[in-house]
């Protein structure tokens, strides 16, 4: 079962990306709202200040200085109720009237706007307020400052920035939680599908992936997948039927031929005739063996051979014991016990027998060693011989049907032995490869061990 880690899950990446995009759009929306709103507020304040400053400038023109000073004093009287800030200074910069202590040193911009902080004490409390003001040059060197408390705007900006921060944080938190949940859910479903698919692939024909019943895209996908399985099953069944009918037909013919050949015994009178009959029977048997080999390969490759729990260690041990007396002192074995695989005992035995037979046959009377070990989650069978080996470039060819490599021509064999091993390896989802034994050949067969638990998790829907 291949459980994809969360970091590698495409769903998790997608959820993260989605969260980031959501956060970015949150910044864009709230940022724009902030900029536009604060611009409107600012413009309103400026218009208010501008209008008042202009009115006062006109009053300065119309009235004498004393009454203008009075006017300013009046307006400045209760600044925090109306929020106005005023200051009038004479040509020499001397303070004439107003509610600001001194004309601030703040640099004024070219059109006379300044912004500054004042600290006022109110109810025995020092409060810092932010003021935006316009300094108007009156005639005769008088300067008038008219301003407004813009602390509210400042507060608004602060609140706005704060809420923007919270919004982003909330988006990230909920987005990540949601993304994690979503990817967990989808990857769990995917893992369940993948586990079921693996189980079906490793020999559970006729089984289908369970749908969740929600009718969503995943169900749709499972449906398509099941249609494919249906198709594979049909093809496999057809293949099996073809193999069976071919087997039935050819074996039937061969059986009649053998029966007829054997039946001729009653007609034979001379030694030469008997010899001829024996030869015919031998050839028929050879043909039968070849047919048997081909059909076994076809059977293994059709994937229809039923698999069960097999103690591969005991199979290798049996075969070692079976072959050991045929080459006394040549065959040795080291076999790790109790390696269980999901397999076909007879086909596995035949494959191991073929490997041992080959090693003894082509191993130039040198020792042959069988080694069965557990490597990770696999049973690894190695058959080492001391023969000429198989050159790198011929190794692929050696697995082909009826292919006999140079040097094999003088020895009995059908050229099907290794192709059967290859077919059996495929049936067991095993890896078959050759390596150098220096000198000689090592054939390595890696069969996946049977999983302890085969139960697939339910789709997390």
């Amino acid at each position, binding site marked *: 079962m291949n459980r994809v880690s969360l970091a590698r899950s495409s769903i998790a990446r997608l959820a993260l990306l989605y969260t980031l995009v959501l956060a970015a759009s949150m910044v864009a929306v709230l940022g724009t709202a902030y900029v536009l709103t604060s611009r409107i507020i600012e413009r309103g304040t400026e218009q208010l200040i501008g209008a008042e400053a202009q009115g006062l400038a006109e009053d300065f023109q119309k009235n004498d200085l004393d009454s203008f000073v009075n006017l300013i004093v009046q307006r400045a009287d209760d600044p925090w109720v109306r929020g106005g800030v005023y200051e009038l200074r004479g040509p020499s910069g001397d303070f004439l009237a107003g509610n600001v202590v001194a004309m601030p040193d703040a640099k004024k911009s070219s059109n006379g706007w300044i912004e500054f902080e004042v600290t006022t004490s109110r109810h025995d409390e020092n409060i810092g307020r932010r003021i935006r003001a316009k300094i108007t040059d009156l005639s005769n060197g008088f300067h008038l400052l008219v301003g407004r408390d813009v602390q509210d705007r400042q507060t608004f900006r602060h609140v706005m920035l704060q809420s923007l921060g919270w919004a982003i944080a909330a988006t990230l938190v909920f987005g990540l939680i949601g993304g994690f949940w979503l990817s967990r859910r989808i990857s769990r479903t995917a893992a369940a599908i993948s586990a079921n698919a693996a189980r079906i692939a490793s020999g559970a024909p006729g089984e289908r992936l369970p749908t969740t019943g929600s009718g969503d895209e995943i169900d749709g996908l499972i449906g398509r997948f099941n249609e494919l399985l249906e198709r594979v099953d049909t093809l496999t069944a057809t293949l099996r039927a073809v193999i*069976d009918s071919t*087997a*039935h*037909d050819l*074996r*039937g013919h*061969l*059986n*009649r*031929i*053998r*029966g*007829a050949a*054997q*039946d001729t015994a*009653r007609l034979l009178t001379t030694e030469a005739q008997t010899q001829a009959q024996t030869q015919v029977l031998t050839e*028929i*048997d050879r043909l*039968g*063996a070849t047919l*048997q080999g081909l*059909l*076994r390969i076809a*059977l293994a490759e059709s994937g229809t*051979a*039923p698999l069960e729990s097999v103690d591969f260690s005991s199979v290798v041990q*049996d075969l070692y*014991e*079976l*072959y050991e*007396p*045929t080459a006394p002192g040549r065959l040795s074995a080291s076999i790790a016990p109790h390696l269980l695989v999901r397999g*076909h005992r*007879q*086909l596995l*035995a*035949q494959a191991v*027998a073929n490997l041992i*037979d080959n090693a*003894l046959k082509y191993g130039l009377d040198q020792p042959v060693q069988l080694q069965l070990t557990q490597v990770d989650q696999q049973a690894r069978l190695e058959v080492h011989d001391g023969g000429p080996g198989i050159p790198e470039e011929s190794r692929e060819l050696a697995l082909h049907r009826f292919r006999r490599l140079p040097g094999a021509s003088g020895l*009995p064999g059908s050229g099907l032995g290794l192709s059967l091993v290859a077919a059996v390896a495929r049936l067991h989802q095993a890896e078959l490869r050759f390596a150098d034994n220096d000198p000689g050949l090592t054939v390595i067969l890696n069969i996946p061990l049977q999983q302890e638990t085969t139960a697939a998790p339910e789709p997390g829907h």
Partner: protein
Amino acid sequence: MKILLVEDDRRAAEYLARGLTDLGHVITHAYDGEAGLTLAMAGGFDAIVLDRMLPKLDGLEIVKRLRADGASVPVLILSALDEVDERIQGLRAGGDDYLTKPYHLEELTARLEALARRHGEVAPSSRVVIADLELDTRNRRVSRAGRKIELTAREFQLLEFLMRHAHQVVTRTMILEGVWDYHFDPKTNVIDVHISRLRQAIDKGFEKPLLHTVRGAGYTISEDP
């Protein structure tokens, strides 16, 4: 032996019937499943040779019905399908042995005789004796003329198999199936080598050999060759 042969391939059946008749058996022939079942149900046969695929009624179905009816007559299933998994189905259905076409007449008769003999037997005894050779499965002891013989576990199994089929021919494939439980052609002379090791153990140093080779068929254990 009275043998019922249920086989739709008339020519193959004819050769087989002739071969079996030559060996002294009496053959009754049915060409389809229904006729085969009717004859089998009527009884009176020592063994049935049954083709796996038959017109009208499948071979496996015939065995199932026979067994359901309580008939214990030994049934040898003949099949042109590969035995690797068909065999299991055949035995599960109630067949006693399974043979793939093309078969050797010697193989078929050896198996038939083994089946018929086993059928007549009461519960197998734990002690088997052939001449002065004794085998006891309870304490796993083998002795000849009172002299203890040391055997490996596999040699013991092989000897037990041969002694339980004493005076019958056992073929190499029967030995591979019966002793090792494998059903493939070992190609080389593996069985012969095991037999010769066993022969060393039980016959060497004794005047009268008990383990004999039957040319073209297999082996037999018997006081007379």
